[in-house]
């Protein structure tokens, strides 16, 4: 078995971002999946299953180093140690509000660097007759879809199915040569970003200085009826299946209306939307496979066809022109940059890769988790801890026909009052479009 895996471009971007965040925000690049279980999950049984399952993967005990070709690699140990993945429990009375649970879930992600079990962690929140199962993961090892698959397999093993550690960990090639296509892809990406930047103007959001940043989360779980109504609206206004561009138009409109201090000097929005480049979703569990399309909305009057349709066209044009693959190729060149330098470059010359806010729609992969240890799953959603710069992000997923919208912002970008105002405008646009 190979004891190392070449990191691809996006893996290295994530590693660089992680390094930068540890220095500037005192936290890594974490995210969390939360599963709402209708019943009380047996803590000891879950601990044993989680540690047994996590102990199957040498990749979880590895680290990023430079290989002999100077390409970064993920080095894995020759001998596996027993997994020490942390599992914690918290108790809430039946009367505790959903917002209280979300606040605790937010604290579960904010772990300091050097926490034991480094890359993964679990928290079980016992809330009356329910259990909230929170799975915290480090983005260096798992992206959102990879984490969904990992948690699904862990829960399958807890439910009694044989563990299936079949994951394509060592299959990545170094991809050192040829250089020319990577430079061409890089040129395409930079041209597109400059073109979009020209339309949407500057990214120089000025984060507040002051005390240590904290993240605020708002989770909006929709009912099946609300979700179906929303999808109908999205498909009618932006085109069939164009939920992501429609959400981008809704969110930017809500942000414009909320008018927080951080956007008052901007004359446009830039919205990077993540795109999944997996070719084998059942095997590509570890590491990162994301790229982006970038939607731009200059300030001023909306275009005649409306922003939803304009975003749909931008989205389709960029996908058709192969922008996500260009990102993937171009990022391979960035592997030469030391991780310690990444943060400085992102705040400087690579600032062009920034956005006003980030948007990700990961679909309904969590619907695959139907039960946990025989107990039915009510809902499941994502909570990304660190939205990419400048610190405001929206994450959408679907579970059992219900959409979940997660809004996360850093206290350095939105004050508590601004976060609440944005949430109100967002809710109004989601649920009472006629009033907006």
């Amino acid at each position, binding site marked *: 078995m190979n004891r190392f895996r070449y990191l691809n471009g996006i893996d290295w971007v994530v590693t660089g971002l992680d390094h930068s965040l540890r220095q500037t925000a005192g936290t890594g690049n974490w995210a969390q999946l939360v599963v709402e279980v209708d019943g009380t999950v047996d803590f000891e049984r879950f601990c044993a299953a989680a540690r047994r399952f996590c102990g199957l993967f040498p990749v979880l005990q590895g680290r990023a180093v430079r290989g002999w070709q100077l390409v970064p690699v993920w080095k894995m140990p020759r001998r596996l140690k027993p997994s020490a993945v942390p599992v914690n429990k918290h108790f809430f009375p039946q009367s505790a509000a959903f917002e209280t649970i979300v606040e605790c879930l937010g604290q579960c992600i904010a772990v300091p660097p050097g926490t034991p079990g480094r890359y993964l962690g679990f928290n079980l929140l016992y809330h009356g007759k329910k259990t909230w199962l929170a799975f915290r993961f480090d983005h260096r090892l798992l992206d959102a879809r990879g984490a969904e698959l990992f948690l699904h397999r862990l829960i399958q093993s807890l439910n009694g199915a044989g563990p299936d550690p079949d994951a394509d960990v060592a299959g990545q090639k170094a991809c050192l040569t040829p250089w020319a296509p990577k430079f061409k892809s890089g040129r395409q990406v930079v041209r597109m970003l400059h073109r979009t930047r020209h339309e949407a103007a500057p990214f120089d959001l000025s984060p507040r200085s002051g005390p240590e940043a904290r993240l605020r989360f708002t989770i909006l779980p929709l009912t099946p009826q609300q979700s179906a109504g929303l999808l109908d609206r999205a498909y009618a206004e932006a085109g069939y299946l164009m939920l*992501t561009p429609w959400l981008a138009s809704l969110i930017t409109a809500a942000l414009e209306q909320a008018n927080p201090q951080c956007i008052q000097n901007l004359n446009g929005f830039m919205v990077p939307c993540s795109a999944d480049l997996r070719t084998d979703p059942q095997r590509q569990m570890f590491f990162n496979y994301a790229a982006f399309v970038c939607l731009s909305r200059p300030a001023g009057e909306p275009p005649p066809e409306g922003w939803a349709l304009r975003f749909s066209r931008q989205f389709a044009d960029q996908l058709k022109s192969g922008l996500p693959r260009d990102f993937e190729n171009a990022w391979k060149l960035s592997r030469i940059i030391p991780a310690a330098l990444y943060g400085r470059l992102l705040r400087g010359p690579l600032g062009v890769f920034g956005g006003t806010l980030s948007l990700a*729609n990961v679909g309904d992969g969590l619907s695959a988790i139907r039960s946990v240890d025989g107990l039915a799953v009510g809902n499941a959603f994502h909570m990304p801890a660190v939205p990419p710069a400048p610190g405001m992000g929206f994450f959408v997923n679907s579970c059992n026909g219900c959409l979940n919208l997660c809004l996360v912002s850093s206290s350095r970008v939105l004050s508590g009052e601004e976060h609440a105002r944005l949430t109100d405008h967002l809710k109004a646009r989601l649920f009472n479009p006629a009033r907006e």
Partner: protein
Amino acid sequence: MTTNEIQTELTRRIADILSCDPAAMDVNAPLHTLGLDSMRMVEVIVFIESQYGIDLMGSGLRREDVASIAALARTVERVQQP
């Protein structure tokens, strides 16, 4: 190409994109119930435009034209005709 041939080819391609068995796909089911999202829908459209040499996006598509694999096949045949 006949509608049936186009439908078979589209089913195979969409099954590839979704990593599932073409035989298990319902050609009359709405595409979102098969697991297609906006990104993969654009992939399907790119495939159709390059494979059949048509401008599907510019042909004034309505939701019912792309609602299922069978509907997509009929639309491709219609747009292909001069």
